[in-house]
């Protein structure tokens, strides 16, 4: 990662208000190339809102700016963000329950053949390969034609993760990806987050489990009630100190009790 080159993604002075709720207040945030940034914060502190803003799903309140690779972007949208290589595992999974696994896997990015028609065979084949090879589900219900609705919670999460991770993305945003995953699946996911860095790509990683976040990130950003409450590097703080700080912030809103 190179501090002189502009960050892959940057938010400047971004706020977001929903009715009376101020979910984000004047937040500055950035991710550099090859950097894994951990995002921590209490429930409702605005982490998911920030993710959705980076993806162009939410528009910042007037005044806030979104920058991508050193350029301020106007009319940022999810379609644009994905076209530029940003993939996200949303906390709410963003699946279409009544559709098959392969349709979910390729949602919004369906491959077409030279006639402009869907390459269904390829989608089914690749979905089958990913389900077997990466998701490693043990249950019998692994056919890529199955609909997502009846899958178990962890299986659904597996589909959401797979579709974000196994396509080459410059920036991967993970909003509590290990939620509902079994021990071994969690391990696989964490391994994968590490491999993102090796490939020179970037990631934003949200997880309430500091034991998951601490070992894999380059930098930690702490959010509290919509504000940035602090920034650390794993080198500068021990896991115990971090846990303490988190508790303090959640209780008092300040870093030092």
């Amino acid at each position, binding site marked *: 990662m190179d501090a002189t080159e502009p960050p892959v993604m940057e938010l400047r002075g971004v706020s977001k208000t929903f009715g009376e709720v101020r979910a984000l207040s004047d937040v500055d945030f950035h991710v550099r190339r090859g950097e894994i940034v951990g995002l921590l914060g209490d429930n409702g502190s605005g982490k998911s809102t920030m993710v959705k803003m980076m993806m162009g799903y939410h528009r910042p309140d007037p005044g806030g700016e979104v920058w991508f690779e050193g350029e301020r972007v106007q009319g940022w949208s*999810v379609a644009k963000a994905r076209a530029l290589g940003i993939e996200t595992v949303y906390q709410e999974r963003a699946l*279409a329950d009544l559709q098959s696994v392969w349709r979910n896997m390729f949602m919004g990015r369906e491959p077409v053949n030279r006639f402009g*028609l869907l390459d269904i065979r390829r989608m089914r084949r690749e979905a*089958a390969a990913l389900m077997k090879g990466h998701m490693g589900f043990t249950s019998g219900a692994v056919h890529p034609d199955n609909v997502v609705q009846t899958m178990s919670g962890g299986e659904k999460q597996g589909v959401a993760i797979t579709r974000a991770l196994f396509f080459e993305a410059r920036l991967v945003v993970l909003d509590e990806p290990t939620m509902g995953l079994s021990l071994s699946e969690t391990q696989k996911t964490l391994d994968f987050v590490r491999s993102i860095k090796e490939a020179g790509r970037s990631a934003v990683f949200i997880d309430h489990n500091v034991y998951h976040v601490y070992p894999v990130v380059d930098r930690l950003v702490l959010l509290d009630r919509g504000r940035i409450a602090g920034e650390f590097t794993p080198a500068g703080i021990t896991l115990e100190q971090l846990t303490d700080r988190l508790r303090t912030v959640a209780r008092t809103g300040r870093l030092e009790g």
Partner: protein
Amino acid sequence: MAKTGIPPREEVAAEAVPRITPRLFLRRHALTTGTIGIAVVMWTIFIVAAPDVFLNSRIYSAFGITTPLWGMMALALTFVVITREMDLSFVSVMALGMVGFVRVHEFTGSVLLAILACLLVGLACGLFNGFLVAVLGIPSLVITLGTMFFFRGIELALLDGTGVPLTDDAFGTLRDVLNGKTAGIPNEFVWMVIIGVLLWVVLNRTRYGAHLFVVGDNVDSARLMGIRVTRVKMTAFGTLGVVAAFSGMVASMQSSYLWPTLGDGSLLLPIAAVFLGGTSVFGGIGTIFGTFLGALMVGSIQAGVISAGISGFYTQLFFGLIIIVSLVMQTLISRRMRS
């Protein structure tokens, strides 16, 4: 995009998709199978009840002429319903498109321009609906009830409530194309098949079709995954508008007369066909083939009941009864096949 980057360090042999067992196949297509089943049963009953009528090709030729008049709209309505919306205004679009046709023909004398105008008016009406629904976010069932009256009102005002004879000789070719016969099959039916095939390809073999399903299934997921929901919905409404205008053209060329009330009686039939064909009211599920079958069924029920010798005040009773029994059987069959 869309280049899959399965990371090299974990090379996975691109293995074959697990085979689909017949049971799995049936289970997945339970609804369609149910629809086919009940269609066959119904047809068998009609043949038994009135063999003279139903073993004679004339009744099929009659179906082939009349069912497409609303059946084509049922096919296009399937798109709208899959996106979890509804449209009631197509019955008025049928007539309003024809006003465009008639007026442009009067002014320019060109049939081709008239056809174009007709389809454009249909498109505009559809996009107007789509705008209200997708951009402003007004519930489609109510707003299209409003536009149904609105479009009809414009049409009546433009026509001053008077019908227009379409007996001009210049329409000869158009009438041949729309209402003639091809290899003994009424062209109306040929058109319905053509539209059905086109819509089938769009729904099942294009990105746009894939997005229709996702938008209807879970609009939030669709948005989060970067699907242009507004555009998808507007296109669905626009398509229905064009098809409705085309149906209006076929219908009025068939009767050589533009009735100001054109389409008024065609509201419930396409809706019944779409749902009888297994498309879900709650979006995300639906097939063009199911709607096609549904249209054939609905189209034949009325004629079938009457040909079976039931007349007078009993036809509605049997019409209703057949719909109920069909749906119950379809539900039971597909439920059975699912487990």
